[in-house]
């Protein structure tokens, strides 16, 4: 009796489910060779604001003074445009992709490991940059890049960028490292106190190191790895796992680990180095000789935006010199707008974060979603895609 009841319940669930499914099979089915971008029109002209805008963003990107009274670039926007800002903070690129798929949000601050997925998934629309007055002041080094455009159609407005650096405790690590080799050295004296970023995208850091140290692997782009190259990178990381004390993804955790000395050497962001220094931890962050991976964030607009005008107004506002300077300074990254450098409270800010230092960013490989069609242009092999990277990351951590 009881079993029959359970079965009935189970089959009821399955029926409900089958009823829900089958609706959205239209736009998928793009394979490695035949990735095509869903055709979505960009906004032709700007109308009046709709009164509100729904945003998905990284923590610290949309501040209305509720975190810190002095940190506020939302209130002015609402006052000027009449668009009320509803913000949803996402913790990871993948959460952003998931949230944007709901169609509930108008704009998103996507990193390069999310932006392409959003574009090819048909979740975001091309941006009519003519409608964004501040776009002309964005550094040229950020416009029409692999992660924010397809076939020179812009899909977003650059927000800011930064590099993943190598940080170490100056009191413990006596010999100042200059190479990523320091975190991959199997005989490292700092075994058990090395840290690494906890995300599949970290595989690119290993690939970048191999690109410079193992030329025979012929890696041209750390996000485009064929079977052999991928195996070399994951082998290197599996070996590195022995050295790792902990992996970090939460930046407050990393600050505390470096302050206490649980971690003495490993990857970091500029803001983490700044926070740790402010906390009196003897740390230093460098860009190693091999260069580094990094991020470049892009404001994108949903293909199903219910408030497109407010969305455009927001994208224009957030890269305006004043707002862009405020957000870059709060988050600790290089602003995208040239004119923002004159607006920062700390006059050395743009120098510290290398905002106009294209030579510095030449050595930075921005996060990009690995896809089966190799990003470096090779057509004779298929590359490992992001889901393969994810599964490999689980295996690396053991």
């Amino acid at each position, binding site marked *: 009796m009881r079993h029959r009841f359970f079965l009935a319940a189970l089959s*009821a669930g*399955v029926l409900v489910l089958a009823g829900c499914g089958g609706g959205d099979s239209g736009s*998928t089915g*793009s394979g490695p060779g035949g990735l095509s971008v869903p055709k979505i029109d960009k906004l032709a002209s700007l109308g009046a604001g709709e009164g509100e805008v729904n945003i998905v963003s990284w923590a610290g990107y949309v501040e209305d003074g509720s975190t810190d009274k002095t940190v506020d670039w939302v209130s002015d926007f609402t006052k000027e445009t009449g668009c009320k800002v509803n913000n949803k903070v996402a913790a990871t690129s993948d959460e952003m992709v998931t949230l944007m798929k709901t169609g509930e949000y108008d704009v998103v601050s996507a990193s390069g490991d999310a932006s392409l997925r959003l574009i090819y998934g048909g979740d975001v629309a091309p941006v009519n940059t003519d409608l964004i007055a501040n776009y002309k002041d964005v550094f040229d080094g950020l416009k029409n890049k692999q992660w924010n455009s397809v076939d020179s159609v812009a899909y977003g407005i650059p927000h800011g960028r930064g590099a993943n650096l190598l940080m170490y405790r100056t009191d413990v690590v006596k010999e100042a490292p200059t190479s990523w080799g320091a975190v991959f050295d199997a005989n490292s004296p700092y075994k058990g106190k090395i840290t690494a970023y906890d995300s*599949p995208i970290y595989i690119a850091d290993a690939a970048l190191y191999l690109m410079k140290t193992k030329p025979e692997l012929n890696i041209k782009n750390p996000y485009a790895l064929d079977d052999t190259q991928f195996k070399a990178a994951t082998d290197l990381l599996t070996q590195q796992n022995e050295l790792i004390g*902990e992996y970090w993804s939460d930046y407050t955790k990393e600050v*505390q680990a470096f302050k206490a000395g649980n971690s003495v050497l490993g990857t970091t962001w500029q803001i983490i180095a700044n926070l740790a220094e402010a906390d009196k931890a003897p740390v230093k962050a460098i860009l190693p000789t091999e260069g580094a991976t990094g991020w470049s964030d892009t404001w994108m607009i949903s293909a199903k935006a219910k408030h497109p005008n407010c969305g455009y107004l927001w994208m224009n506002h957030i890269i305006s010199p004043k707002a862009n300077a405020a957000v870059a300074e709060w988050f600790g990254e290089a602003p995208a707008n040239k004119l923002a450098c004159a607006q920062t409270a700390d006059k050395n800010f743009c120098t510290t974060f290398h905002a106009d230092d294209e030579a510095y960013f030449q050595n930075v490989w921005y996060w990009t*979603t690995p*896809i089966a069609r190799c990003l470096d242009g090779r057509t004779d092999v298929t590359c490992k895609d992001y889901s393969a990277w994810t599964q490999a990351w689980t295996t690396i951590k*053991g």
Partner: protein
Amino acid sequence: MLSAPLLWLVVAYLGALAVLLVSAFWTVNSFTGQVVKQFTVANFRTILTEEVYRNVTLRSLGVAAAVTVICVVLAVPMAFYMAKVASPRSRKWLVIAILTPLWASYLVKAYAWRILLANGGPVDWLLGGPGNGPGYGLFAVILVLSYLWLPYMILPIYAGLERLPDSMLEASADLGARAGRTFRQIVLPILIPSVFAGSIFTFSLSLGDYITVQIVGGKNQLIGNLVYANIGAANNLPFAAAIATVPVVVMVIYLIAVRRSGALEEL
């Protein structure tokens, strides 16, 4: 026909489980992350054949078992004292003392332990200097989880023992039984179902936990982290669902085993 609670059970609980089970047989488009609703056993094949999933499952089971054992060892004497030794007045305060930690947020407590166990932190200091403590790792996970779930073990045992009339203990003594025999024949039959009832909480909560591991677990990952990584980082819901069936299966087996002891009546 179905009463309201039963309806809730069917729709919200069994329905959700059914959805979980069905979606575990789907897959995702590797690039756009859209769910592809085609039947495939690929997810389960990966879980069963890749060594890493076996290792993580065994590690999680080990942690859950260790936490449960530690909680039992600590909770039995405490609950016995509360139920049988303490005066009714202090009993009330003891119950409150056990419950108060539950008022604080789980995260606050886990982060507090992160600070306690940090290099050169209070635990290191008690043990004689930086690096002498356990640091972050599996041991820290077991320690913190035991701390977090201890009240869930104490309360059912306390409730069980409280129902044991003192007069029975006295009768046993009057009839000439020594302490050991009284414990075996009077206390234990009450105690065992209560311990199993408590162990359902500690075991299942530990088996599904992923936050404590992230905070004090060093580089370790448990089943919960794999589920989380596949929902969050990988956006691969079907695979996460497939992994999530592992603890469900474990718990079903555990519950069936425990049911024989009569523990489910203690809940």
